[in-house]
């Protein structure tokens, strides 16, 4: 493990630390405070969960552009059932998760059974689902949910950080484990990186891709439940703003820790690197549009970086041969 490899692995961590130091110097009394750290960790756990779910289809070589709509759908189903129709929390959450899973299964069916391109399918289903959300909500924000959910998502804290952060952390551990230490994880990886190899090696390529898309639907719905808990209700549109950050974080995460692979710790670091940067800029008093500049720029930068990483690996190979 050369120094070069180590630099590549932890460059993102270094960048994160640099951003933290920079803003701590610029805004010592607002940025470098325990409260701000606790706030950063808790406030963006929904994005972390969404990003982790997205990693599954990205690992098997498929896109899922429907995750943000699924997040909105799940939050809205939960808010309507619990807040307006008086369902108890547990069955309402189950229904919200089932709705997300159903979208994921539908995406998988189109991709696997009909052989359609996942990019197009999920672009379509995402738009469709966004329409459904507007329809069932009559374009309004729904509130009146049981306060219990918010208790368990943001109000209860451990070490001053909302519980939602720990849910995201737990999911990161689960995905890290599955992708690194199980046969399933290896198979998902081969399906994404060498579909022909996987097929000729007798792997069930279709079902594996399908389950990855179903998994991202389910996890996006979980993110929706946490989002409803964070905001105490649901609105039909704000979920859409999560789509690009999730992709940016997933791709940026793939340049770190295990460079060249979508990996849970890379995604974790990437999410908080992006959020730290944005929070810091906001504390400097920069306008809110900086968020879009930051996420959009980060996505392109991340993809460019991972290309460079790959090209350099290929270059080494050519020299060695």
């Amino acid at each position: 493990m050369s120094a070069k490899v180590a630099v590549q692995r932890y460059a993102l961590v270094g960048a994160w630390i640099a951003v933290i130091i920079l803003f701590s110097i610029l805004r010592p009394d607002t940025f470098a405070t325990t409260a701000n750290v606790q706030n950063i960790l808790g406030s963006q756990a929904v994005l972390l969960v969404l990003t982790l779910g997205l990693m599954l289809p990205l690992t098997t070589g498929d896109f899922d552009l429907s995750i943000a709509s699924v997040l909105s759908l799940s939050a809205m189903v939960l808010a309507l059932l619990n807040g307006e129709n008086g369902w108890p929390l547990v069955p309402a959450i189950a229904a919200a998760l089932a709705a997300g899973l159903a979208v994921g299964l539908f995406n998988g069916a189109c991709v696997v059974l009909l052989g359609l391109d996942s990019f197009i399918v999920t672009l379509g289903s995402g738009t469709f689902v966004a329409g459904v959300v507007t329809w069932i909500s009559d374009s309004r924000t729904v509130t009146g949910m049981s306060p219990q959910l918010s208790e368990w998502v943001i109000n209860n804290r451990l070490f001053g950080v909302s519980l939602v952060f720990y849910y995201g952390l737990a999911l990161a551990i689960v995905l890290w484990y599955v992708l690194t230490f199980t046969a399933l994880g290896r198979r998902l990886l081969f399906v994404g990186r060498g579909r022909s190899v996987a097929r000729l090696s007798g792997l069930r390529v279709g079902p594996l891709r399908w389950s990855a898309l179903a998994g991202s639907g389910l996890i996006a719905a979980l993110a929706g439940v946490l989002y409803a808990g964070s905001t105490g209700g649901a609105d039909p549109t704000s979920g859409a703003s999560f789509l690009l950050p999730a992709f940016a974080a997933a791709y940026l995460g793939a340049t770190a820790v295990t460079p060249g692979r979508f990996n849970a710790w890379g995604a974790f670091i990437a999410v908080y690197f992006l959020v730290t940067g944005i929070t810091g800029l906001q504390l400097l008093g920069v306008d809110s549009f900086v968020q879009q500049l930051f996420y959009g720029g980060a996505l392109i930068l991340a993809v460019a970086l991972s290309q460079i990483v790959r090209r350099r690996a290929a270059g080494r190979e050519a020299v060695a041969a």
Partner: protein
Amino acid sequence: MTPELHTTPAAPSGAAGAAAPVISLRHLSKRFGGAAALDDVALTIEHGEVHGLLGENGSGKSTLIKVLAGYHVPEPGAELEVNGQPVRLPLAPNRFRELGLAFVHQDLGLIGDLTVLENLRVGELSSSRSLHIRWSRERRAARETFARYGFDLDPSALVNELPETDRALLAIVRAVEEMRAALAHDQRGLLVLDEPTVFLPREGVQRLFSLVRDVVARDASVLFVSHDLDEVREITDRVTVLRDGRVHATVATREATEAQLVEMIIGRSLAAHHHTAPERPAGEVTLSVRHLGGRTVHEVDFDAHRGEILGLTGIIGSGFDEVPYLLFGARPCQVGELRVGGRSHALPLMTPRAALKARMALIPADRQVDGSVGALSVTDNAMLQVLDRYRPAALRLRRLRADTRELLERFDVRPRDPQAQYESLSGGNQQKVLLAKWLQTRPEVLLLHEPTQGVDIGAREQIFNLLRSEADRGITIVVASSDHEQLAALCDRVLVFGRGRIARELTGGDVTKSRIAEQALNSSAGTASITTEEPEV
């Protein structure tokens, strides 16, 4: 036995003998690493002739063509004259167009889901300055062009929907039209046809030839590259035979018999040492194929036996190379039945998963795409199929690596580093890893396609020994390869394919490099066999 054919290249019989040669190439050499792909090659193509270029795989034909296309940079000292004018080598890419050269490769270079007209005009349209394309006028012009060449194609048809023959004709017409546009009125160009006929039916070949004759009469000389001796004899005026990167002979086609051409191509000196193949297979039948039909092959029946290494070969387009993939369910199979391990399988329903369950293994020719994920480690690649042996819900990673190290030891893979990136290994070591991967699944039948492509000599020998010892332990091995030397060294029996069918079966003393090569060349003709009764050198 070879007559003195390679002393004086005969002048072509064609017209306009006084004009300078279209192409005159001298002292052309090209080395890849240490190996010479071309060694002091000279080639002259006269005005108005069809010149054949013959040679085995690896003899340097495609390297030569790629030099003319500006793709390869030749060694210093090579000289090229086009229509009597010296041209500096290496050629810049696309320079060949200005010189009046045009290439039609085996894949034709057409875009299937565009129309005939769009394909015909693609070069012109992309450089045209006018903003508005008048499609009706273009369509009329295209019809006139086709009519000039004596056939009728609908300019609005999608290329995908055309028969193979029409596609080939379209590709040639397009090349000639682009060439004419680049040349001054009285200049003539060179059309290079690189194996254009391999997928064509007989009558399609005839239509293609009449087009070629038309082109030669009016516009250009033709360099015709093919393995098919019947076709070469029919259409060419002279042929140049390459062997091991050198010009073995340039002769007037009329003056050489088919047998002489075969001998020029394969030579006798190279007959490699090989094991003695048995007269008939000894073991019981383990693999039995009936009525197999795929893209090219049809009605193929054969058996393979326990402990046998069976070779499949033929020229490009004969279909031998799709057989392993069809049997393994890796490519869609039209029809056929496979009996293996005492059970029958309908091949159109075969999947790699089912094949694996039937104790079959396939090592494909394309290691990068079908065989491995190069960016992942040797362990990841080698152990993909046996992960269930290592507690799948919580992989024993240390044991996985230790067992991989043992495999690397046993198959002599260097370096013995289970964590090494697969693509950092040499070709030979990559192939050994794939053998290790598949032999771990304990197959009864091992299918291989070009198992030593891109593999150095030493590793090649090791792979041969490995396959031999696996066969001796009782597994059945089927090797599809166009490397005749390899087949001779390895196989007990060789099936030679021609035009989608098994044309010959070689056993015992017939399993030699020259015999296999000769039969592969003859089988493509589908005519009577040439039985040279010469003893092996």
